[in-house]
């Protein structure tokens, strides 16, 4: 067999095992709306933990983090800081979100806004922003699969057919099995992912330099500026670091799927204890960085840094091992992508379309509409992945700039009695409009500040001001 046949076959086998696990998990269950979207609420805490932990390791961490270590250098360190600090934030808000969720029977983030602020248009706006923010995150995963397949085929298969195939597979997978399948496949994916990260994080510096220490010594000698901020960039310095870390750590649990997962925990205390342990999970990322930094010296000159991890794996290991890493990477893209597709499609059908346009819809009709939306969102993300290129990290930051605009409404809603619906609505509109304007006019970062963070500050300010100027609302009992 040719090297590309070996590596592609290995990837295919790993993905097939993953899909098979998914289909088995979904078999023998009647797929109504509840079962499909929230697994019938029968998730034990272990499965829940795996699902939540599994969402952290997307292709973003795998190809994106190493890609930025390669192409940007020092600024990539923001990823380690933001994930850790996201869990710190979660310690202070998730148990409270869980508490109000139980009290008022909430299932989604949109429920939180409609209960707290009593306005279905605000809740609908939250859905629209949530769905729009998912699209770059989905695009990121699809672009990741394209990269994996084209490198594993030794450039024999183009990225576009690879991405199209993966979207078809993804939609079929989500249709057939729903969220329970995704949770089980994420177990396989996580085991493979940790194995892949540690083995290449130690192995690749060892093969080329005799160890991690000598690799950094060589890099510090030949490219010292690459290891600190702003690294290889002109404008990603310390101001950018601070504003981006704040933006993304505050926004991490504002993603609709992460926010909604909090409601399924057994107790608020479980979430608190989870937050204590979860930062340790971030250590794996260091190994991914080692690979990206080694690639700077070993495979210089790649036009797209996101290719660096797999390019250096291909150069350092036999094809079957490239297949294992590629297979782990493919699952790492497809599992989160399935969660995002499910969440976004359900939000559209159940929390946006039905309450605002068609209150008479039955659950069956909502489920049908959600399935249609899975296809629509999959296609939109595919088209964007084909026609609009951006680094994987850049895509995620776009999504974060959107979802973090929910933060004032959530935190003030929990802790400040005086915050009002017009305040939150005005603040959020101002925040989202600012993000759109700054991004479309290529002003991110703005004078060194992350655009999403500038928008978040404005959002907070306007929320507080308008809240003071409008009469207090009666809180739900």
């Amino acid at each position, binding site marked *: 067999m040719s090297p590309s046949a070996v590596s592609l076959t290995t990837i295919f086998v790993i993905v097939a095992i993953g899909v098979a696990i998914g289909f088995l998990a979904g078999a023998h269950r009647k797929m109504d709306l509840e079962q499909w979207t929230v697994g019938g609420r029968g998730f034990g805490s272990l499965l829940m933990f795996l699902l939540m932990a599994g969402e952290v390791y997307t292709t973003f961490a795998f190809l994106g983090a190493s890609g930025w270590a390669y192409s940007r250098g020092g600024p990539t360190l923001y990823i380690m800081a933001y994930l850790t600090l996201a869990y710190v934030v979660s310690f*202070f808000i998730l148990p409270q979100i869980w508490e109000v969720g139980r009290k008022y029977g909430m299932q989604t983030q949109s429920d939180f806004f409609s209960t707290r602020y009593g306005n279905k248009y605000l809740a609908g706006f939250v859905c629209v922003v949530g769905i729009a923010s998912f699209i770059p995150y989905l695009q990121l995963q699809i672009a990741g699969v394209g990269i994996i397949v084209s490198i594993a085929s030794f450039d024999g298969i183009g990225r576009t057919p690879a991405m199209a195939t993966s979207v078809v597979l993804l939609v079929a997978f989500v249709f057939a099995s729903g969220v329970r399948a995704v949770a089980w496949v994420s177990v396989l994916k996580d085991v493979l992912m940790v194995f892949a990260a540690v083995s290449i994080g130690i192995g690749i510096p060892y093969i080329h330099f005799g160890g991690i220490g000598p690799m950094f*010594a060589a890099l510090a000698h030949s490219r010292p500026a690459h*290891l600190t901020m702003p690294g290889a960039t002109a404008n990603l310095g310390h101001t950018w670091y601070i504003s981006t870390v704040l933006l993304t750590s505050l926004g991490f649990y504002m993603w609709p799927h992460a926010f909604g997962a909090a409601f399924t925990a057994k107790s608020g205390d479980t979430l608190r204890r989870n937050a*204590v342990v979860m930062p340790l999970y971030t250590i794996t990322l260091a190994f991914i960085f080692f690979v990206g930094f080694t690639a700077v010296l070993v495979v210089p000159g790649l036009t797209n840094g996101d290719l660096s991890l797999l390019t250096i794996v291909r150069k350092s290991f036999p094809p079957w091992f490239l297949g294992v890493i590629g297979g782990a990477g493919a699952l790492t893209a497809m599992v989160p992508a399935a969660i995002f597709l499910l969440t976004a499609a359900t939000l559209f059908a159940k929390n946006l379309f039905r309450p605002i346009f068609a209150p008479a819809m039955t659950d069956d009709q909502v489920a049908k509409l959600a399935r249609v939306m899975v296809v629509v969102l999959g296609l939109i993300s595919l088209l964007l992945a084909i026609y609009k290129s951006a680094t994987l990290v850049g895509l995620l930051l776009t999504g974060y700039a959107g979802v973090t605009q929910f933060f004032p409404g959530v935190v003030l*809603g929990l*802790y400040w009695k005086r915050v009002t619906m017009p305040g939150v609505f005005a603040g959020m509109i101002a925040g989202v409009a600012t993000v759109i304007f700054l991004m479309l006019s290529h002003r991110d970062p703005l004078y060194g500040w992350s655009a999403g963070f500038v928008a978040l500050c404005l959002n907070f300010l306007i929320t507080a001001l308008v809240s003071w100027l409008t009469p207090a609302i009666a809180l739900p009992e």
Partner: protein
Amino acid sequence: MGVKKPPVGALLLGLIPFVAMCLSVSLWDRIEPMIFGLPFNLFWLLAWIVLSSLCLWAAYRVEVARDKKDSGAQ
């Protein structure tokens, strides 16, 4: 909707990782001294992943102590 506000002690403990990993970046973003073969900034962040976990554990103890006191007072 009123939820219990976290105790001040727990909030201060939660602030420590933000200062150490985010706001103080210009103090530790350098290569030397390299520790365990890692550039100083990377080593610093790795160390603070573990220390942040410890901070949250301490914050957890503070909250548990407060909850105990509250339920004892009722």
